[in-house]
C-alpha cells in the first residue's frame, strides 16, 4: 500500500519534482543560475503572462477557454499609454477596464448567445487586435509620463513590483477558488454544468465571472508590461495564448474541467520560465524556445489525454 501511495504522491507532484530536478541541475552546471538576480529575473519574466495564467486556470477549470488573452493584453498596454496625458492612474484604470470590457464580451458571447468559447474568443482575438492596430495606427506608442514607469520599475527589497503584484494575485485567487462559495461553484460548473444548474447554481454568472477575471488580469498584465517597457504596440502578446494555455495544462490542470488549482498553474508557468532561462543561459536561439513551447504543449495534452482515458477505465 505504501509504495502505491508514494507512487501516486510522486505522480501528483511530478511538475514540482521536475522544477526541483531542473533547478538542481542548472545550479550545478551554471554559477549564474542560483543567484538572487537571476531568480528575480525568472519571476519577473513570468509575472505578466503568469497573471493571465491565473485567469486561464479559472476558465479551464470551469470548462471554457480564452484565445483572446494576448490581444486583451496588448489592448490594456496600448490604452494605458494612450490615456497617460490624463494622468497615470487614468491610464492604468482605462487599460484594466479595456480588458474587463472584452472579458465581459467573451462571457456574454459564450453564455448568453451560447457560442463555443474557442470560436467566440477566436473572433474577439482578431477583432481586438484590429482595434489595437487602429488605435496605434500600426505604430509603436511611447510612454510620455515618467510616473507611469515607476509602476513596474520600482523594487521593494530588491523584488520588482510586477512580481509582488503577481504573487498577491496568486494568493487572492487561490483563496477565492479554494475557500469561497464562488470557488466551489466554479468547480461544480466545470465538473458538471447541467447538474449544477439543477442544484440552483447560476452557471452563466459563474462563467461570466471567470471570463471577466481573465479579461481583468490580461488588462492588468498589459498595463504592467507597458509600464516596464514604457512602450506598447499591437505586436504585444502575439503568442501569449499558446504560452498561457501550455503553462496551465503543464501545471496539471485537465482540459476536462472541474479540477485544478491556481498553484498548479503557477508551477506550469514557473517551469516554462526556468526552461526559457536555461536556454538563455545556454545561449540557445529564441526560435528554438518557440519550437520547444509548441512541442511541450502537444506533449502535455497527449499525457493529459492518456491519463483521462486511464481514469475512465478504472
Amino acid at each position, binding site marked *: 500500500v505504501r509504495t502505491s501511495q508514494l507512487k501516486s504522491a510522486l505522480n501528483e507532484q511530478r511538475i514540482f519534482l521536475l522544477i526541483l530536478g531542473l533547478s538542481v541541475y542548472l545550479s550545478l552546471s551554471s554559477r549564474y543560475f542560483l543567484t538572487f538576480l537571476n531568480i528575480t529575473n525568472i519571476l519577473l519574466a513570468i509575472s505578466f503572462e503568469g497573471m493571465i495564467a491565473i485567469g486561464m486556470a479559472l476558465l479551464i477549470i470551469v470548462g471554457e477557454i480564452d484565445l483572446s488573452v494576448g490581444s486583451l493584453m496588448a489592448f490594456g498596454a496600448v490604452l494605458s499609454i494612450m490615456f497617460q496625458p490624463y494622468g497615470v492612474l487614468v491610464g492604468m484604470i482605462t487599460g484594466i477596464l479595456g480588458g474587463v470590457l472584452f472579458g465581459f464580451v467573451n462571457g456574454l458571447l459564450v453564455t448568453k448567445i451560447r*457560442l463555443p468559447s474557442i470560436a467566440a474568443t477566436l473572433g474577439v482575438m482578431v477583432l481586438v487586435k484590429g482595434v489595437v492596430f487602429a488605435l496605434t495606427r500600426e505604430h509603436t506608442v511611447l510612454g510620455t509620463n515618467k510616473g507611469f514607469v515607476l509602476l513596474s520599475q520600482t523594487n521593494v527589497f530588491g523584488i520588482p513590483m510586477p512580481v509582488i503584484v503577481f504573487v498577491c494575485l496568486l494568493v487572492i485567487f487561490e483563496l477565492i477558488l479554494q475557500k469561497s462559495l464562488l470557488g466551489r461553484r466554479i468547480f461544480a460548473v466545470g465538473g458538471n454544468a447541467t447538474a449544477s444548474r439543477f442544484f440552483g447554481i447560476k452557471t452563466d454568472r459563474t462563467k461570466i465571472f471567470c471570463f471577466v477575471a481573465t479579461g481583468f488580469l490580461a488588462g492588468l498584465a498589459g498595463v504592467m508590461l507597458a509600464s516596464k517597457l514604457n512602450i506598447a504596440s499591437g505586436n504585444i502578446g502575439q503568442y501569449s495564448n499558446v504560452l498561457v494555455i501550455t503553462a496551465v495544462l503543464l501545471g496539471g490542470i485537465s482540459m476536462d474541467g472541474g479540477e485544478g488549482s491556481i498553484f498548479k498553474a503557477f508551477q506550469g508557468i514557473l517551469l516554462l520560465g526556468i526552461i526559457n532561462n536555461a536556454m538563455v543561459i545556454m545561449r540557445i536561439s529564441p526560435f528554438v524556445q518557440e519550437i520547444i513551447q509548441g512541442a511541450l504543449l502537444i506533449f502535455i495534452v497527449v499525457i493529459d489525454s492518456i491519463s483521462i482515458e486511464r481514469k475512465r477505465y478504472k
Partner: protein
Amino acid sequence: MTQTKPFLSTMLREQSQVLIFIFLLIVFSAISPEFRTVGNFINLLKQITVIGVISCGMTMVIITGCLDLSVGSAFSLLGLVSIIFQRNNNVLGIAMPVMAAVVIGLFNGFIVTRYKINSIIATLGTLSILSGIALLITNGAIISGRTGTWFGIIGGGRFLGVPNHVYVLIAIMAIFHIVLSRTTFGRKVKYVGTNATAAEIAGMRPARVRTSAFVMSSLSVSVAVIIYTSRMTTASPIAGLGYEFDAITAVVIGGTSLAGGKGSIFKTIIGVLLLATIVNILTLFNVPFSYQSIMKGVLIITAIYVDIRARRQGEN
C-alpha cells in the same frame, strides 16, 4: 404555384451568401468606378488564389469537425523549403514542399485522432513548432531563389489574359468539390463530422478520415506555397502569418458550419469571394488594414452566430 414560396424561402436561406455577394458586387460597382474595371477584377482574382486554395483544404478539416490552425506557419515553412530546393532544381522546389506537407498533415492527424485531442490546441502546438523551425532555418531572414527559369510560370504567366494561378485555383476547387460531393470518401467526411461515434459503429474509421482531411489541408497549403514562391521567387519565415484566420473566416462566412458535418467547396468559394470583395473595396477607399481586422473579427462572430441559430431552429 403553392410550391414556389417554400422553395424561394429555402433558397434564400440556403444561398443567402450568394445573394449577399451579388448585392455587394452591384453596390460596389455602382459607388466606385475603380471597382468595376476589368483590371480590378483580375486583381481581385489574383489576391484570392493563395487563400482560396488553402480554404479548400480547411473546408475538408472543418467538415470533419476539426480545425487546422497550423496552415499559416506551415505556409511559411513550406515556402522556405520550396525556395531552398528551387535554388538547385525546379522540380525539387515543387516536390519537396508537397512531401513535407504530407508529413505535417500526418503529424496533425495522428496527434488529434490517436490521442483524441482538441484539434485547436494540437494545431496551436504545431503552429508554434513550424513557425519556430521556419524562423530558425533562415534566422528570420528572407531568402530568394533562382529567377529566370520556368519556375516562375505558375505564379507569373498568363493564358488567354488570365493569370495561370487562377487556373490552378479553379483546378484545386474542382478536385476538392468532386472529392467532397461525388466520392465515398467525401460522404465519409460528412458522416464523421456529423457523428463520429455513429460513423465508427457503421464501419467507418473516423481517425483515418480525419487524418486524410488534415493531409489534404496541408497539401492544399503546399499548392498555395508553390503559387506564392513561383510568383515571388522569395520566401519569408513569416509569409503565412495569420493565414489560418483568413482561411477559417472565409470558410465560416461561406456558411460551412464549425460544428462539422455540413458544408461545400461552393460555399467556401463564395466565402473567399465575399471576403476578398469587402477587403478590395475597403482598400480602394483607403481604409487601413487594422479596420479590416476588426471587420474580420465581427464577421467570424456573426457567421458562427448565424450558423448556431440556424442549427437550433433545426433542432426545434
